[in-house]
């Protein structure tokens, strides 16, 4: 810009700035008189001025020093005590938080740097350490555990459990909680508070900033005991003028919103500076619950003083006026929590929790007296089924102390153990976390259970007393530890771990247990573990404790049974053969030794087998999963489901002399969840099992298919406790069709962005799946099987059908066809079909000429395939050797292997440019290699997604048509351990 012009601009800018903003436009209209460039220049400057108030107001020296602080302060890579700092997680109310590795225990921790003025002298430090120790005794699933106090010589850090998630504050900022979620969250906090209070620890600063939310939604309370420490050190709250102390010491320079937010959750007694007891936390939790339900703070005001005044004197606005969804029963509960007088409040957090859980059950089952929600009229229900109402979560009754199962009375009892009095059975939940707890194993005295939980982010083994008490993590390792088995003398636990193993654990299928890892043994009450066999699963001890049996194999076949001395040594195969008419079973799972040492029972192909301990021909006993011997080997207890029902525990009598089933199976439980993984105490009086819930929900992930990286965070497209997969995007990416999976039959649903799912097929005679939206969007292809056929054998032949996207006009297209894939031009469909030699081959059906042509002619074709965007290539799975991906030119030519990793390589799909072939090893993270548009250059597969691998199971990944969203179904297994007690 030249000086003359600028002088003109400068003068006019001066004049305009003198004017009030609303008069500037008129002035400039006049002054610029048609000089558009001048006018634009001035408008731009005025706009900049508007946002430049604080711009450059910090001197450069300060800017530079802060940049330095940011860099230094990240502390990346530094060692603090025995913690190595990995990254900065953020800043919380009480200081900076870092992700660090505990180099002794090899686990991740969160390190919180304490404010410098907190620890002023040795005495204060000792007192702090003592408090931290008390707090660290709080091992509860809803409390972020404090591990210890560390120092780098200058600064003090608290090492605590690392929780992946966000604060409830952050969650509330981007998400509104449903009544159910709010109540569940509050109940979880209450349960954490109850545990802490009974240990004599008060939080004193319960607020959304101090509550971490993990996925699936689970709340963990942060900073237990810290508030008190800080008060002690700084003399806060001691003075009557709490406000001044609080504001001046802690928050004077932060934005006023933060001050208000902080004061907002105080209890009246806290606001008045009176002595506090545990009931202050109950009040604060009430305030949090109020906010979760309404999006508003219970006590609001212009200033901190106003808010404190409201807390002490006023009642919050009626909740139902803000959120009419909140039933009256809940407002009653809330009113009790928010009573001004502590004596009128819930006296124990546990009571608060109980009321919340009771309310939640009633709310979920629509049995509230106030019942504001009108049930759907039958007509409407038939037309449009709303998933939320029809699919209530099965795993109810979390936190119920005792429930009695409805028992099917047994027939007359012959064996000693049948003297169990089946009328006096009690059922107790041993664990209640929302995450995964399973795989229980009894100590020989029957008083302790070892089990697996994922509450630390990986699978870890915990000990817990049946009578209650803390959950003790005996794994303390960053690896996955699963499948624990107590030794017969109770001194050791055999388990499977990925520590020192190159392979991760993975689920070979929706319904399978984790495979991979090595067999390890560790002292039962903690200590160093040793590996006794490479590559194996499901360790089980011989009754004398000398040997451990397990199954082993590759990712395709887990079909070796082995035996290794428990002290370590050479593993030997136990040779097992099957009758030729038995279905081939690639995965042998859960071997278990009988107490009389004669038999091994195991699961293979959804059937329970027995084989002599030394090997031989296996005999099929019953259909079922996860067998285990009863106390005297007279029964095999296992898990099975009847069509349309959940898995429950069953028992079948067994003759140890004959090696056969000696009667008909009987159910032991009603299947409150997916009841599986039974363990029997040595005296036979207790059975522990896991009541699980498997859910698969669709998620979309913003993605750049050229760069091969996510561009946003995963967004759930469906929610609930059902299994859905076989997903397909509509061409515009706004809708998804999918299949829900029920025991006997599945149906096809559609979900449009932001609305509830709509059921497209519902005929109970048919099992419908593999929906695929056509490229022009007017047709959905799907596969239909008859239910009777489906049940008769898992490999029932399907036929290919078409229908409209609203489910109308279903019509048969081709028989004997599975897994349709539209050609990008929409004029043809690729599908798999079983040919004469009982092998799958791929065919293309031309919709114009109405003729099919076979395109593959090789063994091992798995009909999970895709077209390249130019339709010149087919890419498909092949198990000719291991599960590889092959590409075949559509117009003829040889197929070639394009992906061959040591894993099972599933679900190929190609980016819209054709440059990248994406695929998924072992149903975990997605990888890619150069695709057809790069002439299939060979290269190491590179990882394109970055999900934590522990417990990860993604199904059906695919790209939207524009290549900017990934769609997949994410599997989650959650569950609780229940103890069934037989009174004699």
């Amino acid at each position, binding site marked *: *810009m*030249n*000086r003359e012009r*600028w002088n003109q601009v*400068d003068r006019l*800018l*001066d004049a305009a*700035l003198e004017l009030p903003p609303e008069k500037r436009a008129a002035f400039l209209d006049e002054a610029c008189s048609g000089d558009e460039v001048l006018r634009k220049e001035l408008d*731009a*400057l*005025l*706009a*900049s*001025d508007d*946002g*430049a108030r604080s*711009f*450059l107001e*910090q*001197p*450069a*020296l*300060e*800017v*530079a*020093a*802060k*940049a*330095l*602080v940011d*860099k*230094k*302060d990240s502390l*990346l890579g530094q060692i603090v005590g025995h913690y190595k700092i*990995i*990254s900065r*997680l*953020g*800043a*919380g109310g009480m*200081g900076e*938080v870092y992700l660090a590795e505990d180099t002794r225990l090899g686990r991740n921790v969160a390190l919180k740097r304490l*404010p*410098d*003025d907190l620890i002023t002298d040795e005495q204060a430090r000792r007192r702090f350490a003592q408090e931290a120790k008390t707090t660290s005794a709080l091992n509860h699933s809803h409390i972020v555990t404090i591990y210890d106090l560390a120092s780098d010589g200058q600064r003090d850090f608290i090492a605590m459990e690392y929780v*992946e*998630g*966000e*604060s409830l*504050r*952050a969650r509330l*900022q981007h998400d509104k909680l449903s009544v159910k979620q709010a109540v569940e969250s509050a109940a979880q906090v209450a349960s954490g508070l109850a545990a802490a209070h009974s240990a004599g620890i008060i939080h004193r600063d319960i607020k959304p900033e101090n509550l971490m939310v993990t*996925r699936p939604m689970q709340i963990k309370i942060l900073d237990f005991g810290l508030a008190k420490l800080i008060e002690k050190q700084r003399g806060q709250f001691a003075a009557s003028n709490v406000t001044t102390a609080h504001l001046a010491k802690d928050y*004077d*320079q*932060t934005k006023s919103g933060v001050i208000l937010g902080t004061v907002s959750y105080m209890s009246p007694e806290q606001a008045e500076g009176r002595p506090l007891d545990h009931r202050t936390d109950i009040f604060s939790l009430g305030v949090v619950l109020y906010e979760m339900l309404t999006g508003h703070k219970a006590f609001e005001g212009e200033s901190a003083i106003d808010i404190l005044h409201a807390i002490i004197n006023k009642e919050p606005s009626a909740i139902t006026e803000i959120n009419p969804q909140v039933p009256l029963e809940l407002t009653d509960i809330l009113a009790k929590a928010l009573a001004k007088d502590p004596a009128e409040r819930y006296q124990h957090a546990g009571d608060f929790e109980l009321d919340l859980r009771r309310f939640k059950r009633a709310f979920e089952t629509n049995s509230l007296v106030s019942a504001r929600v009108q049930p759907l009229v039958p007509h409407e229900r038939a037309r449009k089924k709303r998933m939320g109402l029809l699919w209530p979560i099965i795993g109810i009754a979390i936190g119920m102390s005792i429930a009695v199962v409805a028992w099917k009375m047994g027939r007359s009892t012959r064996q000693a153990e049948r003297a169990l009095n089946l009328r006096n059975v009690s059922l107790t939940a041993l664990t209640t976390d929302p995450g995964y707890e399973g795989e229980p194993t009894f100590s020989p005295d029957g008083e302790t259970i070892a089990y697996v939980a994922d509450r630390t982010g990986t699978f870890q083994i915990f000990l817990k007393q049946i009578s209650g008490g803390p959950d003790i993590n005996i794994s303390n390792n960053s690896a996955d530890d699963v499948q624990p088995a107590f030794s017969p003398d109770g001194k050791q636990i055999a388990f499977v771990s990925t520590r020192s193993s190159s392979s991760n654990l993975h689920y070979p299928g929706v319904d399978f247990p984790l495979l991979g890892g090595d067999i390890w043994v560790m002292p039962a009450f903690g200590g160093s573990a040793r590996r006794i066999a490479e590559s194996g699963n499901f360790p089980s001890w011989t009754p004398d404790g000398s040997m451990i049996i397990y199954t082993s194999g590759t990712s395709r076949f887990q079909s070796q049974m082995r035996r290794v001395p428990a002290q370590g040594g050479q593993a030997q195969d136990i040779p097992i053969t099957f009758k030729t008419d038995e279905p081939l079973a690639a995965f042998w799972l859960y071997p278990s030794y009988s107490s009389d040492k004669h038999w091994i029972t195991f699961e293979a192909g959804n059937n329970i087998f027995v084989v002599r301990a030394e090997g031989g021909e296996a005999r099929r006993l019953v259909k079922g999963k996860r067998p285990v011997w009863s106390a005297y080997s007279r029964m095999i207890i296992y898990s099975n489901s009847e069509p349309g029902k959940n898995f429950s525990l069953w028992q079948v009598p067994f003759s140890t002399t004959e090696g056969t089933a000696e009667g008909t199976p009987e159910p032991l439980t009603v299947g409150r969840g997916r009841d599986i993984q039974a363990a029997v105490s040595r005296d036979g009086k207790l059975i522990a099992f896991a009541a699980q819930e498997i859910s698969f929900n669709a998620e979309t992930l913003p993605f750049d298919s050229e760069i091969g990286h996510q561009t946003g*965070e995963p967004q759930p497209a469906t929610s609930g406790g059902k299994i859905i997969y076989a997903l397909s995007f509509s061409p515009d990416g706004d809708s998804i069709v999918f299949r829900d999976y029920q025991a006997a039959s599945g149906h096809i649903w559609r979900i449009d962005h932001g609305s509830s799912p709509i059921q497209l097929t519902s005929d109970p005679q048919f099992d419908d799946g593999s929906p695929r939206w056509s490229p022009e969007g007017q047709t959905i292809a799907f596969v239909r099987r008859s239910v009777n056929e489906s049940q008769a054998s898992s490999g029932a032949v399907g036929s290919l059908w078409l229908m409209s996207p609203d489910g109308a006009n279903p019509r048969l297209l081709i028989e004997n066809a599975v897994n349709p894939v539209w050609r990008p031009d929409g004029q043809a469909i690729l599908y798999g079909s079983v040919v004469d030699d009982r092998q799958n081959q791929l065919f293309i059906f031309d919709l114009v000429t109405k003729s099919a042509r076979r395109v593959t002619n090789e063994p091992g074709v798995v009909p999970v395939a895709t077209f390249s965007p130019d339709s010149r290539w087919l890419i498909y799975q092949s198990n000719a050797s291991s599960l590889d991906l092959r590409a075949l030119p559509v117009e003829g030519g040889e197929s070639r292997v394009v992906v061959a990793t040591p894993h099972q390589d599933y679900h190929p799909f190609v980016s819209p440019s054709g440059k990248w072939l994406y695929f998924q090893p072992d149903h975990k993270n997605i990888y890619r290699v150069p695709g057809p548009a790069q002439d299939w250059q060979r290269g190491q597969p590179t990882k394109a997604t*970055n999900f934590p691998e522990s417990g990860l199971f993604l199904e059906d990944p695919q790209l939207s048509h524009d290549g900017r969203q990934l769609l997949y179904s994410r599997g989650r297994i959650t569950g609780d351990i229940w103890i069934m007690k037989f009174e004699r």
Partner: protein
Amino acid sequence: MEKGHVKHSPMTSSSSSVSQLLIAWSQGDEAALAQLTPLVYHELHRLARRYMRSENPGHTLQTSALVNEAYLRLIDQKNVSWQNRSHFFGIAAQLMRRILVDHARSHARQKRGGHAQRLSLDATVILTKERVVDLVAIDEALSKLAEFDPQKSRIVEMKFFGGLTNDEVAEYLNVSSRTIEREWRKAKAWLKGALE
């Protein structure tokens, strides 16, 4: 305090050397810069350490006091004769600009070359982050501004890099404080537009 009569009072070694080096630099002695830079860096790190120790990095009241202190130590007016003050502060601001921008430049290089670990912050505590002011970009924009409005550029240099108040800048440029305020506002508007 009578500023003009403290010329002979005892001086700390650092402030005296800073003053002398500044004058030497202003007279064309580039070697003086090499000696000045570590002194500025020293203040910078000292300031950074103070920030790090303070509980809340967003603590503006306290930090502006810290910054003033740092500037005062670097550019100690007590050691400069009244007549030279204007000249001296102008030079000091230039120097600060040069050193801080060079520092920022090398910092940025290290960052690019140093394989800074990129970690996704998808699921963590809310991170409050002030918008980072890019000293290098400001330096470049300021040079452009100087081409057609040297006075505004100078004002920004003195206020932003030199840490001076409106009154001080007004005094040294011999214009009214009100003029400085207006010019500063317009300069900021232009710079902000230029940086976006």
